[in-house]
């Protein structure tokens, strides 16, 4: 029965029926079957929001089960438990680790309707034609493979994409301006003894090491060949500087998920730390001043995307493509942009945002009226503008991407020692 319906859909897709099918919303045709489809998605709490699952149920008809985990658990599950998920919502550096296991299947870009509108960063690596690709695991370097089934990354754009980009952002240090009381301009301030016992850094090695590198480079203590691919000596030096600071009591705590960073900041335990945009948003929405401070050395960027489990086939695979196309069609992008992230296809998200929201979040303009987060809490008053300015100003000043280095295993061991020391 199920096979028959499926083949009817295949027939419909071909020939003259294509016109009819595209005139009708595609999900209508297989409405009966699709209700029984369940896709299991897992990823970080950043984008694994139940609102998205509900909206999928409403608009596409199938069930999307969401599991939110921290980055390390996400990597672990994607690498070791391929049967436990259908869709992996992972970051690009995680992709670099996980792709060679063969647990994910490449996606055919010809089936992605909005492929052409995806931002250049994820295709040739360039935001604008003049941009230079930043150091680290830039999304374009792990975004494509030569063919379906290939486990090696392609150097250039191909028809086969590893992850469909969903959200990304440029990160910097978060500060409590009320408790610091002076301008902060450099990454080097994280190790300033002035903030002894009031600083924090995140305990996720691939990201933390990049924040460390930004700090060490900014303070002039280390000159890196390539921050995104350090040598053992560079790793040793970097970790040594931070171990010393840790022993001297510079840090109050380390955090592993952005919500922990929210708590540290909101409770005043920490006044300067590595932070992610929605965490700053969350602190602000409690009425506590918090700034996502643009720094002269530039941003550390990250990007995430959806990957398909290799075990997806048939109708489930079709549903997954359906879901991805829907994901890029604007609603989710707008939903996430309202939390301070960027959508991979900003053009479609614009239709789902008010001009005021678009101006504030994307164009960096002062808010014409109060800006609310997706849950209705006011987080910026009329007249305020976004820290760091417009999309192009922020994403144009990326110094490096979160990365996985050639010496990653060595780095991980040193990181473990740093945490344990």
């Amino acid at each position, binding site marked *: 029965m199920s096979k028959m319906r499926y083949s009817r859909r295949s027939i419909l897709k071909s020939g003259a029926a294509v016109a009819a099918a595209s005139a009708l919303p595609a999900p209508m045709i297989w409405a009966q079957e699709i209700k029984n489809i369940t896709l299991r998605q897992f990823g970080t*709490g950043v984008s694994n929001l139940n609102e998205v699952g509900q909206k999928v149920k409403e608009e596409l008809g199938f069930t999307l089960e969401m599991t939110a985990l921290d980055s390390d658990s996400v990597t672990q599950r994607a690498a070791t438990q391929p049967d436990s998920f259908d869709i992996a919502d992972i970051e690009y550096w995680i992709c670099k680790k996980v792709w060679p296991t063969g647990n994910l299947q490449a996606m055919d870009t010809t089936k992605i309707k909005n492929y052409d509108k995806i931002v250049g960063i994820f295709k040739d690596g360039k935001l604008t034609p003049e941009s230079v690709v930043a150091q680290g695991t830039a999304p374009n370097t792990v975004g494509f493979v030569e063919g379906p089934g290939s486990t090696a990354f392609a150097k250039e754009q191909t028809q086969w994409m590893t992850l469909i980009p969903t959200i990304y952002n440029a990160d910097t240090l978060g500060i409590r301006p009320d408790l610091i009381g002076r301008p902060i301009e450099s990454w080097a301030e994280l190790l300033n003894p002035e903030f002894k016992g009031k600083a924090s850094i995140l305990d996720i090695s691939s990201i933390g090491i990049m924040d460390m590198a930004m700090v060490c480079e900014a303070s002039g203590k280390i000159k890196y060949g390539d921050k995104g691919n350090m040598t053992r000596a560079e790793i040793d030096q970097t970790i040594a500087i931070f171990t010393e600071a840790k022993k001297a009591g510079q840090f109050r705590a380390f955090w592993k998920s952005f919500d922990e960073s929210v708590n540290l900041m909101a409770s005043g335990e920490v006044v300067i730390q590595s932070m992610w945009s929605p965490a700053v948003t969350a602190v602000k929405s409690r009425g506590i001043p918090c700034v996502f401070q643009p720094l002269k050395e530039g941003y550390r960027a990250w990007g995430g995307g959806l990957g398909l489990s290799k075990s997806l086939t048939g109708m489930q695979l079709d549903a997954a493509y359906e879901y991805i196309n829907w994901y890029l069609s604007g609603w989710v992008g707008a939903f996430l942009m309202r939390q301070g992230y960027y959508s991979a296809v900003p053009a479609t998200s614009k239709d789902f945002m008010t001009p005021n929201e678009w101006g504030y979040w994307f164009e960096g303009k002062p808010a014409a009226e109060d800006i609310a987060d997706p849950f209705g809490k006011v987080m910026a008053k009329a007249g305020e503008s976004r820290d760091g300015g417009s999309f192009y100003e922020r994403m144009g000043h990326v110094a490096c991407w979160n990365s996985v280095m050639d010496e990653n295993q060595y780095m991980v061991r040193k990181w473990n020692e740093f945490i344990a020391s």
Partner: protein
Amino acid sequence: MEPRPRSFYALTAFFVLFVIFLYGPTITIAILSFQGPQGGLTFPMNGVSTYWFHNLFEQQAVGDIWGSFRRSFALGLMVMAATVVISVMAGLAFRKRFRGSAALFYLTIASLVIPSILVSLGVGLIFDRFGLKVHWATSGFGAQLTWTLPFGLLVMFAVFNRFNPSYEEAARDQGASAWQTFAHVVLPIIFPSVVGVALFGFSLSYDEFARTLLTAGSYNTLPLEIFGMTTNVTKPVIYALGTLTTAFSLLIIGVFLLAVWITARRRARRMASLAKAG
């Protein structure tokens, strides 16, 4: 009554301080769970409301509290049943020395003291190597049993150490089969302890974290969900959950005490009426 020695008052003070220490955090989170809708996980309070208790019953931004609660409850019952049956059987076995019983005993003790994360890691590795899927009801269930069974067995030892075999002998002399002796003589006597084992089994499973961490698969149990919440949730809803759990435990213990008190009174009344009749 003889007067209390001075040490009594010092010890009472110590006990009171200890109870405050025990309940301090519980009370802190009980207060914080009444945070206003804008409030955070820490002081200061931002208004007072029951918002977070209502919120607890609504859909969360991430995760699925009630789904994980149902799974933990089901798993708790499974572990409870298995713990009761297996420990009672093993308890009976250990009443007589059999070859290898000492080794088995030390293995059980080892099961108790081996750090939980090792069991979790090992079971996870085995399932991975054999290409099996980890799931809370298979690998999670087994991993938890390595924690509840030693407890169950220790309780059974305590019971059978003080068990008077003459009851059984009497039953056997009257021609009862081994099963009849067990069902009608032994079981009723050890029943209160069996209930104890059951409660132990359930609550140890219900709160087990480390052993389920790498063995639960795609669906979280409640402790894993709470762990996830501590890293994913910045709202006092987690405190509301904690406060409700404590209130629920208090309620269960209250019911239990009431039941004990009622049976005791009934028995006393029956004794009294018997005495009158006699």
